[in-house]
């Protein structure tokens, strides 16, 4: 009981800090945290499907771009908040629409299939844009201020993290983990794996959609090449791995660590930052193949087991 209270207390403190940040810190710091929270939201939502079920998806970028475009198209026609929500809904709808056939594909085939999806969506939008507007790329004028965007991301990130947490600790989550463990066995035991995967896919897709919408306003300019870039998916995967795939806290840690290294290095050593990042990634796999958080947790569990005796 005490642990629960401590956890909630700590989280509350963090949330409070985040809420007050824009009032205390400069715009630059606010934007760093905006960035950080974007990655946390993306990573938390990604692990709901890919971390829990083991279906590694490179499709997060597709939903991100979808959300960005919805915002670009509806901007100044509908209120901002509605646009963000719609972006999330659209992404989920899209995920649900393609979910059943897509999730029948397994393993590495699924990985590459989702990569193909992202590329397909990118070229689809390029062609659509050409048909509709004659040019590629959209500008968004008079976008909301930094603080508005910051609080929006804060809300989205909080919801994403809470969702990831509740899914993990629910029967639904246990079902997802059983899929990762052994899908056929899970099926044999009566778990409707198709439905579970489908739900996870849809839920996880809503967040990149919303994040994409908010980011579109931050950038003021979007085009298919940048919003559908697979680099977004790649970075999310790295963060998830660093944090340990199944860990809600781990996702936060992964995002924070990568962002930290980023901040410390990219300003001064742009090329070296990436090189160091690459080396770090290789080292993590060599020495901590289960991510950073899991081994620490395991050690804690062991120690507690010892104490209980």
């Amino acid at each position, binding site marked *: 009981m005490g642990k629960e209270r401590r956890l909630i207390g700590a989280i509350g403190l963090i949330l409070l800090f985040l809420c007050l940040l824009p009032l205390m810190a400069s715009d630059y710091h606010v934007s760093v945290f905006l960035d950080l929270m974007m990655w946390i939201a993306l990573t938390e939502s990604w692990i709901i499907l890919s971390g829990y079920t*083991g279906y*590694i998806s490179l499709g997060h970028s597709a939903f991100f771009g979808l959300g960005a475009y919805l915002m670009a198209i509806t901007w100044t026609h509908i209120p901002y908040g509605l646009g963000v929500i719609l972006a999330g809904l659209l992404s989920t709808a899209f995920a649900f629409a393609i979910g059943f*056939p*897509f999730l*029948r*594909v*397994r*393993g*590495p*085939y699924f*990985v*590459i*299939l989702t*990569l*193909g*999806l992202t*590329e*397909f969506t990118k*070229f*689809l939008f390029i*062609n659509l844009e*050409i048909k509709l507007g004659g040019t590629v790329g959209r500008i968004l004028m008079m976008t909301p201020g930094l603080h508005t965007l910051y609080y929006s991301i804060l809300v989205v990130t909080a919801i994403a993290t809470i969702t990831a947490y509740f899914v993990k600790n629910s029967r639904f989550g246990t079902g997802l983990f059983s899929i*990762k463990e052994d899908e056929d066995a899970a099926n044999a035991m009566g778990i409707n794996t198709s439905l579970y995967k489908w739900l996870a896919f849809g839920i996880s897709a809503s967040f990149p959609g919303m994040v994409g919408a908010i980011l579109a306003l931050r950038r003021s300019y979007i085009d298919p090449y940048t919003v559908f870039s*697979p680099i977004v998916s*790649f970075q999310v*995967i*790295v963060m998830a*791995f660093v944090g340990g*795939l199944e860990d809600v806290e781990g996702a936060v840690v992964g995002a924070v660590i990568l962002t930290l290294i980023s901040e410390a290095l990219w300003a001064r050593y742009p*090329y*070296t930052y*990436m*090189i160091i*990042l*690459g*080396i*770090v*990634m*290789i080292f*993590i*796999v*060599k020495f901590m*193949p*289960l991510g950073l958080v899991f081994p620490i947790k395991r050690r804690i569990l062991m120690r507690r087991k010892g104490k209980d005796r």
Partner: protein
Amino acid sequence: MDLTRVLQIIFTGLIIGGIYALIAVGLNLIYGTMRLLNIAHGELIMVGAYVTYWLYMLYGVSPLLSMVLVVGLSAIIGLLVCFFIFLPIIRSSKSITVLESNSLLVFFGLSFIFTNVASLLWTADIRGYSYMTRVIHIAGVPLMYNRLLALGVALFVCLACYFLLQKTMLGKAIRALIQDREASQLVGINANFIYLISFCAAFGMAGLAGCLLSMFYEITPFMGLPYTIIAFIVIVLGGLGNILGSLLGGFLLGLLETIGVSVTSPGLRPILSYSVFILIILIRPKGIFGRGVY
């Protein structure tokens, strides 16, 4: 459509397809034997292209000679990467899924390292050079010598690969390993040795593809990713682990591309390719030729 046009489409399709096949076969070798998805494959192409470029620009070394050098250099890189990074990972991985996910991370890391070392050393400027640009006419179709060379080399290497796999003991061992890792080790096949060979061959072929490409396309540190994506599509279509499948698949994709460009609006080409790809995977999740090993 007259015969010359048809022949032109076929020739150019095969030229591009040859490069695709080269890249895809290498990628598939690594996947088939080790179940690793080499996201950094395109970067080896980039390295091959740059090495050829610099040797040509600074020392006047003909790309024909560079080909050999590049293959050697890439193979050595493959050897080092496999030995120092992947063999330990394979040893220590508790399960296939862990191995696959860990290897993804490592390959991402390698990809970052390669592209940024290249940017650091050679700057991000676009580079290019011209070599063997005289045009020859074959059956009425105009072709530049360098593109003919690329086709020839790609065909030769792919066929050599195929014969090696079919007719030699080493080839049989590789195929056995792809088919069933445990069983092949039971009959005494040295898995680690095969892994090293696969890496060397795959990296070597990627480097060679880069050398060939450098003769007619532009060179930048970031040129690798599109080729990696294409290679993935080819091996998935041809069947993961199916070496002949990716060989044929590469040529097929090249042909489909050029046919698509000439028959339909060229602008629709990517959408068509990706829709076809997605459809095929959904219908036949194991690829056109399936998991069988030839």
